């Protein structure tokens, strides 16, 4: 949890208490409900969020405000979800995305 800001000069202390658990590539990591998915991943030292489609380079946060789509991952089976602006919810399953991802089976 080394990368979380415990104390902010303007916002003060981090008052959030209860963490939930989300699954990232089969591994459980702690997260605050409602924080951006990418924030929880970076806090758990997961920096590679996807691999690019052509040359397979790793990508992470770039703009961190929903513009650039560099942080897209597969969330609950849906690829290309911008993790920097998508809030953490209970029982989320997140997967690193290769290229444009895989839609898998047709959604019900």
């Amino acid at each position, binding site marked *: 949890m080394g990368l979380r800001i415990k104390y902010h000069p303007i916002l003060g202390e981090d008052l959030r208490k209860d963490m939930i658990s989300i699954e990232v590539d089969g591994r459980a990591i702690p997260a605050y409900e409602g924080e951006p998915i990418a924030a929880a991943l970076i806090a758990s030292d997961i920096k590679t969020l996807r691999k690019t489609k052509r040359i397979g380079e790793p990508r992470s946060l*770039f703009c961190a405000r929903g*513009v*650039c789509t*560099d942080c897209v991952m597969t969330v609950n089976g849906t690829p290309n979800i911008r993790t920097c602006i998508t809030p953490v919810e209970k029982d989320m399953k997140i997967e690193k995305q290769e290229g444009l991802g895989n839609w898998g089976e047709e*959604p019900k």
Partner: protein
Amino acid sequence: MNEGEDIIICRCEEVSRNTIEDAIEQGCDTLDSIKRRTRAGMGLCQGRTCQRLIAGLLRNKTGKPLEELKPPNFRPPFRPISLGLLAQEGYRLRREDELRDGGK
């Protein structure tokens, strides 16, 4: 950056500076023609990150001022949505309701 080193300009479609400059040298003199030739700006973010960089490259190579460069064509949807959502019954109606209610 070192002189001569290639860098990615369009992050979504992974188009490098050399590729874009080659396209300009081969005659692409508008943002739209560069987009069609190289795919730069056709990826997930639809050019939101790279268009200004490409405009700068085009200006540097051709001397055209930035204000004379016409933005490339934009077509909806403006961000990726699933075909399932488009095909959903009542989708159009809901969207029109949203517009009428001022996006509420």
